[in-house]
């Protein structure tokens, strides 16, 4: 199991700055995770109150994102991090953007939930939404856990799962288009579901991005734009 | 790309042989210089020791002396005045006549001339001072000092040209050789040299007076120059603002250090003797002059050792809120003390060997008494040497050499002390 030790600097301040950074990052992760859960629940349960709640946290997420970015810049300016510290800062700087985007996507889902709530009958695709939502929430959670633990095996799993999610999304999408063809009156409602699905898929991608950053963080490897197999291979090569 | 580099190396190698030959030559010059220096030391020392060692011994003739109270003109052995005024020469003469068994006036005179009658008399006087009661009116064997000519002749017996021989008549030579053969005339350690003051007769002359004189000189010098020197050094290094006044002091001190010592003699002569009217030839005045002379040495070496105290220590102390005096007394002085002590000892050693200024203030006078205080007339070791050197009497040259050995001994002791002080006191933190 790979571990980095961010807390053994001679400078306690540095330790705590890095620690704060990581904690803040994971907290933001927790918030957006909750946003996903709530948003999916709001759309599938047609719960506008919950959806509103999701929207309300947007501001916080935005602020936290900016704060995290500021923290990163300050650490770079004040500490001149190198090696693992630098990788941590850079990885967090990048992943923060992903978290914020996840938050945005959750917001979009919440907005869709509100849009859908006007009509009485349930549109098609709710079960797909629910499934995909669960899976997506899972990999977001996993990616954050992997980040917290510097666990590249887990990160690899996330990337793999994201591929599954992509497939799942494609299936759901195909189905929804079929529904839409069947029932053109509901097109605009279905479009909302499509947007929600699409958001979930994007969330999965972002989780996958975060996982890619874990590779960088732990191994110094830039595995973006690689297939999971390539990633695994590269990691193994370095482990040898 | 490598072309010019190869060229460089070739150029370097081209001249290499020449450079190494120059190197060897240069080294040789250095070694020669050192060799010359060492040779000088060796020659000087063998020469002086060779000349001086014989000064520690003297030839004595064992004669029996009748301590006859009437001849001695001593009636009351408890009266010191009488003992001091006693006519010892008479008994010694009588003993000499007896030993050589002479009766004619010419023989008596010849015999008497072989001995240092007065010198031996002083030896007897010393014995009387201790226990006159015991020895008065007894007859006892006495190692009598021979005349310095006899001593001179005997010490150079083997040398070519038989120096000193022409001073004696045939008879005297016979006597001498007979006495030597009988073992009555012996070379013995010359205690008188260490116990006596100066004298007009070389066989009686000793360095006691000069040693004591030097001692008092150094005492005065030390008592004045050490505190004043250190105080000045501290003032200049720690207190003095950088201005014309301190520059003046500084230039003065540096110049004084290199002013010829004879000039200080003039100063002593004109100021202390002529102006203030201090008594001539006293260690007190000598000490004043030597103080003025050694002060620059002490100040300069003290300043150097104060300077050697890192400024960072001072800054640290100031930064903690020490006052100037605390900085000086707590930090600077303890660290600089070894250097100051060494400087002082070296300055004193210089003062001990110094002669020119003393010459000017009359310490080259003939003073047979051993001084007992700083205001008694006295001479000093180097002065004594100088006087003996100038004395035409052959015996004095040897005395001078011996005195030089004593002086060098003192200097070596003092310098060793300085080295020891430096080693011992220097706390290497």
């Amino acid at each position, binding site marked *: 199991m790979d571990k980095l030790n961010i807390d053994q600097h001679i400078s306690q301040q540095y330790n705590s700055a890095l620690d704060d950074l990581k904690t803040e990052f994971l907290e933001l992760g927790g918030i957006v995770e909750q946003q996903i859960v709530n948003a999916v629940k709001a759309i599938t349960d047609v719960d506008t109150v919950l959806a509103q709640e999701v929207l309300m946290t947007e501001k916080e997420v935005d602020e936290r994102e900016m704060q995290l970015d500021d923290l990163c810049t300050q650490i770079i300016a004040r500490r001149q991090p190198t090696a693992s510290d630098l990788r941590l800062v850079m990885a967090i700087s990048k992943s923060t953007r992903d978290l914020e985007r996840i938050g945005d996507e959750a917001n979009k889902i919440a907005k869709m939930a509100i849009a859908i709530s006007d009509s009485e009958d349930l549109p098609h695709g709710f079960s797909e939404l629910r499934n995909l939502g669960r899976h997506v929430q899972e990999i977001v959670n996993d990616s954050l856990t992997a980040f917290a633990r510097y666990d590249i095996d887990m990160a690899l799993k996330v990337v793999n799962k994201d591929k599954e999610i992509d497939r799942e999304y494609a299936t759901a999408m195909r189905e929804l288009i079929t529904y839409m063809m069947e029932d053109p009156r509901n097109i605009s409602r279905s479009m909302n579901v499509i947007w929600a699905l699409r958001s979930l898929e994007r969330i999965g991608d972002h989780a996958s991005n975060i996982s890619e950053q874990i590779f960088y963080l732990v191994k110094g490897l830039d595995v973006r734009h690689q297939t999971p197999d390539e990633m695994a291979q590269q990691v193994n090569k370095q482990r040898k | 790309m490598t072309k010019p580099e190869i060229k460089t190396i070739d150029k370097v190698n081209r001249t290499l042989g020449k450079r190494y030959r120059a190197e060897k030559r240069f080294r040789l010059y250095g070694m020669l210089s050192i060799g010359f220096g060492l040779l000088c030391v060796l020659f000087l020392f063998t020469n002086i020791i060779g000349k001086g060692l014989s000064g520690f011994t003297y030839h004595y003739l064992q004669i029996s002396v009748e301590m006859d109270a009437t001849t001695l003109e001593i009636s009351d052995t408890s009266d010191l005045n009488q003992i001091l005024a006693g006519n010892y020469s008479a008994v010694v003469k009588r003993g000499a006549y007896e030993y050589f068994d002479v009766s004619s006036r010419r023989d008596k005179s010849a015999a008497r001339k072989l001995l240092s009658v007065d010198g031996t008399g002083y030896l007897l006087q010393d014995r009387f001072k201790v226990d006159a009661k015991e020895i008065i009116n007894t007859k006892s064997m006495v190692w009598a000092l021979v005349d310095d000519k006899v001593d001179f002749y005997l010490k150079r017996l083997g040398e070519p040209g038989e120096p000193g021989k022409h001073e004696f008549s045939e008879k005297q030579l016979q006597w001498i050789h007979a006495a030597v053969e009988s073992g009555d005339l012996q070379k013995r350690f010359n205690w008188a040299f260490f116990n006596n003051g100066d004298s007009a007769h070389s066989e009686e002359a000793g360095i006691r007076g000069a040693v004591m004189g030097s001692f008092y000189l150094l005492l005065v010098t030390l008592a004045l120059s050490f505190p004043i020197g250190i105080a000045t050094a501290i003032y200049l290094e720690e*207190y003095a603002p950088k201005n014309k006044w301190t520059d003046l002091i500084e230039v003065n001190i540096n110049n004084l250090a290199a002013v*010829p010592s004879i000039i200080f003699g003039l100063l002593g002569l004109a100021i202390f003797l002529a102006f203030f009217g201090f008594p001539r030839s006293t260690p007190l005045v000598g000490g004043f002059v030597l103080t003025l002379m050694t002060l620059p040495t002490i100040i300069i070496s003290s300043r150097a050792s104060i300077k050697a105290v890192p400024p960072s220590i001072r800054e640290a102390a100031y930064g903690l809120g020490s006052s100037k005096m605390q900085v000086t007394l707590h930090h600077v002085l303890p660290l600089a003390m070894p250097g100051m002590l060494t400087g002082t000892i070296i300055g004193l050693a210089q003062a001990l060997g110094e002669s020119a200024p003393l010459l000017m203030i009359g310490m080259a006078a003939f003073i047979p008494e051993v001084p007992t205080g700083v205001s008694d007339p006295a001479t000093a070791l180097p002065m004594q040497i100088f006087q003996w050197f100038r004395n035409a009497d052959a015996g004095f040259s040897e005395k001078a050499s011996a005195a030089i050995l004593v002086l060098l001994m003192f200097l070596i002791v003092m310098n060793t002390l300085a080295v020891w002080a430096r080693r011992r006191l220097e706390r290497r933190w």
Partner: protein
Amino acid sequence: MSMSMLFLVMLVGVAATFYFCRQRSLSLASELGGIRHLHSLPVFYGVQAALWCAIPCLLIFGLWVVFDDAIIRELTLQYLTEEQRSLSANELQLLLSTIESITTGSSTVNDPQLIAISQHIVDFRSVSNLALSITVVCSLVGLSFWAWFKLKPENKARSNVERCFMLFLLLCSTLAIFTTVGIVFSVIFESIRFFQIVPIQEFIFGTQWSPQLSIRADQVGSSGAFGAVPLFTGTLLISAIAMLVAVPTGLMTAIYLSEYASSRVRSVVKPILEILAGIPTVVYGFFAALTIAPMIKNGLHGLGLDIAFLGVSIGPLEVSGESALAAGLVMGVMIIPFVSSLSDDVINAVPQSLRDGAYGLGSTQSETIKKVIFPAALPGIVGAILLAVSRAIGETMIVVMAVGTAAKLTFNPLESVTTVTVQMTTLLIGDHEFDSAKTLAAFALGLVLFIITLGLNFIALNIVKKYREQYD
């Protein structure tokens, strides 16, 4: 009370004042809640009080001792008869010293009047002594009580003590100036008087030196010849010989020891050579006169040296027993360690980084020395040499002992010459009145010597100082 006893009492009193005042400040501190509430540390209160006692007492003591003789003398005068009082100053002085010698019992004059006066003096003295003791002890006690009562926590004891300390230091440091002033004063007046007798240009440019000619002081026009040129040339000649020996040897020694020799060789050779510096000059003089001079004389005679000068044979060499060569050689040997240790300092002051720099460029050792270290140290070395020259010029004993007094104007090292310092001693040893041209000439020579060496030192010290600053 004897003086030393009084001194002891003062010491004890001051010590007691110190102790009690320190204790008092401590108790004041504990009332206030700790030493930190005092202005200064307790020891400063003690020292301050001790100084308050000691300084006035010492002042009283000092003034008393200085003035009591004069006062007693004034008092004594009243016992003298009218005619005695109207004696000339000199005779009065004589009379008083006679009386003085009676008081000490070393005179056997039996004049009852004088004996009575001397008795008065003895009485005055004992009264004065008693009064002094009482005054000092009283003021001591008074002052120490005053100090004790005046002691307050807010007293600026530290500042006061420090001011005293600094005054003491300042006082000591002015001594150097007084010394110089003293030197100048001691030579300048006599010299002026000398130059009133002998014109200055004659002194400086005259080539005849024979002060011994003045047989009687009142003999007009026969005060001797005081042309100092032969003395200067003699001095120069001997110094030059000395420098010829000392400079190359000393310099190369310094270089070898500091650059080539291993630390072990250095630790052995250096002290041995420094022995040369520690030997008193009188020893060198002795050595020069009794060993080297005969050696040169005999050696050159033995060789039967025949020197041809400008192609003209001037016959077998005349070697004087007091040749300049002997003194110069010995003086040179004496100066070797002086040159070498000064140069050593200077060479060692050249930072190691310069050596590293030179070696790093591929210099050999001698190149490093000749091209980097020596030029860098040159000013310092020049300074050292100048100091050595000044020392050679001022050197007295060697020349006094090994050089004659015949003032010959020559540059032949084998002849006898004389030097400035030799003449000074010759003229001043023994009895001297301070008004014969002979005696005064010595002071004039002293002045010249002082000026020359001062100039040399000044230049040398400035060079050395500049050089030091370069690396500070």
